[in-house]
């Protein structure tokens, strides 16, 4: 690698983090310094205080955490069962069923907002957290990922457990699930960051503070017509992304490896 390339790589890196660094600058300084870079400008937390007061952040946080946990919990159970069925059972119609599952990789629930909204209205689930989560619970991506992982587990292990008198579900729980732990971790990280950040469907199906997740709250808060100044918007944005960003910075290696693993399969 030449010196020029090294410098270019670094310049690009600086360019890439600068929007985020800039948000930090604006959020931690009084509004009058938002666009002027004076290294000795006074630091302040007032913007965070204001932002916290403008929007019901604790409620949005709670909603997002509930949403993300509920989706992940359901996904782990449903995708494990379905992935196991596809990996180890030679049932009639399996290949067609699998192709139908994979269809969801391209036609994701956010494309079908009109019809899914209607379904939620019929089920009485509009403006509920369950309503936001339900379309995502049977995740084709999760089923595919677990099927691929389960397929790599040697059959001998399963047969040994069967000889010991394990039921099918026992085999799944005692042999397959523990051996697929890295896949579960990778999938969990991808799923949590996806749903923490998801916006369109939650926007469509919610209409009150009690159910709106962070992204939707942030969109209302940051809309230009709300008249909130830039420093406060920066602070609010940082509040909203902080948990995920901190988690990412702490476990960045794990995060990137998870995305890689999920991508290779």
């Amino acid at each position, binding site marked *: 690698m030449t010196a020029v390339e090294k410098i270019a790589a670094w310049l690009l890196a600086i360019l890439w983090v600068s929007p985020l660094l800039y948000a930090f600058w604006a959020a931690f300084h009084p509004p009058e310094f938002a666009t002027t870079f004076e290294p000795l400008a006074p630091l302040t937390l007032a913007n965070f205080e204001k932002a916290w007061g403008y929007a019901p952040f604790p409620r949005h946080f709670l909603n997002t955490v509930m949403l993300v946990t509920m989706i992940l919990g359901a996904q782990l159970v449903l995708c494990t069962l379905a992935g196991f069925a596809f990996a180890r059972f030679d049932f009639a119609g399996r290949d067609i069923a699998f192709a139908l599952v994979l269809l969801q990789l391209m036609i994701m629930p956010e494309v079908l907002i009109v019809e899914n909204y209607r379904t939620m209205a019929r089920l009485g689930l509009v403006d509920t957290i369950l309503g936001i989560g*339900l379309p995502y619970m049977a995740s084709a991506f999760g089923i595919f990922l677990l099927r691929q992982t389960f397929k790599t587990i040697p059959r001998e292990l399963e047969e040994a457990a069967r000889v010991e008198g394990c039921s099918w579900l026992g085999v799944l729980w005692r042999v397959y699930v523990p051996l697929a732990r890295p896949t579960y971790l990778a999938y969990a990280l991808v799923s949590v960051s996806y749903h923490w950040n998801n916006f369109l469907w939650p926007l469509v199906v919610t209409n009150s503070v009690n159910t709106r997740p962070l*992204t939707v709250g942030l969109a209302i808060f940051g809309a230009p017509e709300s008249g909130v100044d830039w420093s406060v918007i920066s602070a609010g944005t940082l509040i909203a992304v902080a948990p995920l*960003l901190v988690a990412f910075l702490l476990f*960045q290696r794990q995060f990137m490896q998870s995305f890689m693993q999920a991508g290779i399969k």
Partner: protein
Amino acid sequence: MKHVYGWLLLTPAAILLVGFTHYPAVATLADSFFSAGTALRPSRFVGFDNYAALADDPVFWQVLKNNFWFALGTIPTSIALALLMALWVNARLPGRALVRLSYFTPTVLPMIAVANLWLYFYTPQIGLLDKVTGLFGVPSHNWLGNPDTVMGCVIAMTIWKEAGFFMIFYLAALQSLPPELEEAARIEGASRGYFFWRVTFPLLMPTTLFVLVNATINSFKLVDHLFILTKGGPDNASNLLLYYVYQVAFSYLDTAYAATLTVVLLTLLAAFAVLQFRMIERRVHYR
């Protein structure tokens, strides 16, 4: 027994998949042949009327064109950048972990937050972009308010958000390439450029195609930023198909027409799906 067990295990996921993917897809198609029902006038079969309206709708053609330019503007650049990033981060580079972190960080941010941050760059006069161009004596410009520049602004932001994500796939692929290849090339005296174009790049072809398909799908379902930055404006200059679906369904409350637009979107996505299935089948052989 295996048939029963197989289907039993599959049932919970299958119900939800059918309920929220297959049924709505079919129902959307059916709805596109009916008029939107109101309290006074129930919906009735109208044949291809909605499609005729679609063909006459200048906004529809505009958003389709916009989507095409959005895809063309974001995909090649972010893939090229992603590959470059991956090559750099995979090579010996001082502070490599930090550089990799910088490239990847935009990926974990929600698009809404990203749009909030970038909105300010594009603000006339006080925004960062105007400040920078102002240094060169360029007069202030309303970047997001001008139909000629708004798409470029949205594209630049999307590239920033996506390149680091695609980098990860290239990085994974690069790390799985056998190191002997590079050693052999070095012994043979091949230049780095030659090695890249003749060995690395062809070997990365499956990754490139995988990323390409994903990027294409993304360019049709990524509309979150429009809610913050432009609301599709000015004059639909930055509107995209899915955002238009949202507007028609939830602002103009014309669900029948929204269904018709969704059918177009589904057809496009299905076409990409077929493409991807073909690719998986053939496993993309390199020469």
